[in-house]
Every structure is written in structure tokens, then in C-alpha cells.
């Protein structure tokens, strides 16, 4: 089980992590500023295992990989939305942050609700209701399974 942090549609990567923090030397120094413009206390409140649930087109805008990276660094278990912007989606898979296409969940939950995710079955349970998620294409699932794209570089030798 994890808590929901709920966001609306078209959340762009500037809201996830703003430009002025991107050139900080490490992601760990950036993560305290996650979602600062939308929820200034997000980084203090979120616990490892919690979920980000959003409406469509989550992660639009800039290609900054710092956006999925700060969410992963804060321990966000997965991001669930009806659709994702493509660069964010690809970046998230590449670093091993599950991004899950799930219709209807955004409408059914609010911030603070407890939900659970069964990644293998692609099922989210929220308040007694279940939601089925779209499975990842096998190529992407393989990247996620091995813990991200960089792992494959280390195992290729």
C-alpha cells in the first residue's frame, strides 16, 4: 500500500523539477524541490512506496531526465496516468521508474488515499475497486526488468 499524490493533466517537467535546480551537481541535491510550484511540501511528505497519480499527458515539455530521476530518488513507487508525454515515458523506463498507463484511476482517487499496485498482473486496487493497467511493450518491460538501460551496458561486455 502507498499514499496517492494526485495531479491534473498536462503536468510539465518544469513543475516536476524547475530549471533553476537542474544544474545542481546531483539529483539528491535537487529532489527537495520536486513539484515545488504545485505542492511546496511534496518532497517532505512523500514516503518511499507512495504513488503519483495524474491525468493525461503527464511529463510534457522538456527532456530533462531529472524529472523522473527526482521522483525515483524520493522513492515514488510508480506514476499512474491515462497517458504520458513520450520523452518522460522513455526516460522513466530507462532509469527504472515504473510509469503505468491506467484509465479511470485519476477520477477515482484523491490525494492521501491508499492504493496498491500488482505490477505483474497490471492491477491497481483503490478503495475496494480494481483498475487494470496497460502492459508495457516487451522491449520496454525488458529494460525495466533489468533495472534500467544502463544495466544493459554493464552486462553487454
Amino acid at each position, binding site marked *: 500500500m502507498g499514499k496517492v499524490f494526485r495531479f491534473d493533466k498536462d503536468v*510539465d517537467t*518544469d513543475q516536476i523539477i*524547475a530549471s533553476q535546480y537542474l*544544474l545542481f551537481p546531483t539529483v539528491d541535491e535537487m529532489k527537495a524541490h520536486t513539484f*515545488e510550484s504545485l505542492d511546496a511540501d511534496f518532497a517532505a511528505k512523500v514516503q518511499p512506496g507512495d504513488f503519483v497519480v495524474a491525468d493525461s499527458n503527464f511529463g510534457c515539455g522538456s527532456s530533462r531526465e531529472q524529472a523522473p530521476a527526482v521522483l525515483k530518488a524520493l522513492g515514488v513507487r510508480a506514476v499512474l496516468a491515462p497517458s504520458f508525454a*513520450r520523452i518522460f515515458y522513455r526516460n522513466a523506463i530507462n532509469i527504472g521508474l515504473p510509469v503505468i498507463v491506467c484509465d479511470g484511476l485519476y477520477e477515482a482517487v484523491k490525494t492521501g488515499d491508499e492504493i496498491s499496485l500488482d505490477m505483474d498482473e497490471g492491477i491497481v486496487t483503490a478503495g475496494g475497486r480494481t483498475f487494470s493497467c496497460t502492459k508495457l511493450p516487451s522491449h520496454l518491460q525488458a529494460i525495466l526488468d533489468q533495472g534500467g538501460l544502463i544495466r544493459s551496458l554493464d552486462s553487454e561486455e
Partner: protein
Amino acid sequence: MGMTIAEKIIARAAGKEEVRAGDIHTVTLDYLMSNDGTTHLTIDMYNNLKHPRIADKDKLVWIVDHNVPCDSPKTAASQKKMRDFARENGIAFYEGAGVCHQIMCEKYVAPGQLIFGADSHTCAYGALGAFGTGVGCTDYLYGMVTGGSWVLVPETLRFHLTGRLRRGVTARDLILTIIGQIGANGANYHAMEFVGEGMKTLSMSDRICICNLCVEAGAKTALMEVDEVTMEYLAAHGGREPAACFKSDPDAHFEKTYDIDLSSIEPVVAKPHFVDNIAPVSDVTGVKINEAFLGSCNNGRIEDLRLGASILKGRKVADKVRFLVVPASREVYLEALEEGLLDIFMEAGAMVMNPNCSVCWGSCQGVIGAGETLISTGTRNFKGRAGDKDSFVYLGSAATVTASAIAGEIVSADELGVL
């Protein structure tokens, strides 16, 4: 069935006769561009590899453009890491020479190439008939180490242009109108292809402006056919040869085709806080501004500075308005200097800055404070994009931005009577 330009470029890069939208292919990349927004993190990941190696250093182009000159010790440390690594490894490196996409168009991009850039606006390269797409630093590192990557072949949305833009209406108004029509995710995962008689009326600067902004509709890439305008641009910029000049086949599959009469386009703005929040300039005439910005990879070329200077000549920037003019590259800066455009801007009270990303990305020069309003030729108007989270950004053309700088409030050049 025939193939689209996007399919043909990926087929070439994959060494295949034929590819189809929806397929995933392993490809060889022609170039990999990275800037100071993320390269320090790429280097950290590189140094943590078990067997760090670079497939082909000549494919890498590194550009410091986002925070240049640097403004804090933390940024200095990140940029030093990038500078040192580039020198040690013989990677092409630019600093203060311009915005990354402008440098890539001036010096590297050639038709038919497949290019990854660690910046979302890499789709600009479609103006030169190349498939450019934005990636994060992990994808970048994978390409740097292996020379290749994987791509999902995109479906194509085709935009068939006819007619000619009216006086005072620009390519920026066209692409903003299209984004307003299809929405911020209207082209998610898709290629946007621009063809038709109307293309002949659009300069290379116009074309870069159009392709550059397609990511604001979610596009994976934007593509245009190679013609005389392309070949003249290449000849004037080092005489690069095309890798291949592709056109979509008549029987290629397009998910959707849009017909656009260029003469129907009006001056528009994107209102806060979304690029698809489009309205005619006349809807927001009179909105007070604190700052105006003419520059960026979208509208910082010599054609944009000429348009701005022609409007500003003999006039003054309004009291209490900061007008930032930022040429997109050293080449553009020197051309503007030569043509006397910088004199016009300076005499009118504008601030002419060195080539960089400037306030377009909100962490360089010219950021705005709480409650302030910026009218900008930058790429985005997201909440807080240009500074404080409680500030407001309107996006418009070079003409609208300059006219607004004179008036102190948003107005089209036509309405102000300065065209």
C-alpha cells in the same frame, strides 16, 4: 505500401529496406547533441559504468548554452565537469557560441540523418530534412557508448500548406495556431510532416521555427522535404552534403492530414500557462507587461532580429519595460552587428545579450518576479518557466513581442500601426 519521410530515415538508420510505424528498430545515430542542462549527470553515469567507452567521438557535439556565462558556483562546477570531459575525450565543444539547436543547424545537421539531442527541441532539425528527437541523459549515454539506440517508428500527421502568410503574420503564429488546434498532446509519439505549395514561401528560419515548436504538441519529430531553400542554406553553411533527400511516397500511410491555408493565419499568443492555450492577439490587447524577450532557438535568428529592428527603428522601448534581445548564435550576433540592427535595439533602450537560452528556460538572465508578466518568443510558457512560480508568460512572434515592448502592453504590430 509506400513509406513516410520518418519511416525512410529510420529504415536508413536501421539498415533496412522497409520499416513500418509501430515497429521497434535498432538504429545507428548520425549525431548526438548534449547541452549543459543534463551533461554533468551523463558524465557521472558514464564514470560509473563498468567499462566506460565512446563509440565514435566525432558523432558527439556538446554545447554550453543554458546558463552561459555561468551564474553560480554550483553551475560552474557542473559546467567545468562538462568542459574538462569534452577536452579530455576530444569531443566537439562550444561555449557561448549560441543556442544548441541553432549551432547544430548552422554546422552539423544534414538531410536524411537521424540525430538524438538531450533537449526536447531537437525536433527543429526536420527543417533540414533530418529526424531529430529529444532524449534524456540515459538514452544519450547509451548512444554515446554504443553509437546506436532503439526507436519506435512513429505514425505521421501531415500538414498540407497552401497560400502565403499575410504581412505581419509569421511562422510562429502558424505553429502556435496548429498547436492550439491539435493540443499539447495532439502529436504525442507522432511525426509532424509539413508539405505543399505553401512551403515554398517559408524561409529556412521559418522552417526551423515551425519544426522546433512541434514538441509542444508532443511530437517525436517534425519533418520537411528538401528543396532549393534547404540546399541554399546548406551551401551557405559550409556546403554540407545531404545523407539522403526523402519524400513520403504517394501511397504512404498518414494517420491524419490537415489542410492549412497560410493566408488564414492571424497573429496569436499562447496565454499562461500552456502552449496550446492559444488566442488571437486582439483578445489580450492591453495586458500590461514588465519584460519582453526576443531570442531563443525558436525566434533568435537574423530574420527575427531584422523584423524586430524594422519595427523598433526610430521608436523607444516603453518606460518600465525590460526588452531583452538575444541573438541565437555568434553568427547571428555578428550579422546583426554588421547590419546595424544592434544599434537600433540599443538606441531604443533594449538590452542586447550574448547568445544563450536566456529567460526562455527561466534559469539564466532576465528571470521575472512574482506577479510579473513577460511576452516572449521563447519556447514555453509553463507556470514558473521564466522565473517565479507566480509569474505569467505569453508567447508570441518577434513582431508581437517588439510591438508590445514599445507599447508596454500586449499588442500586435498591425494594431499598433508599426508594420
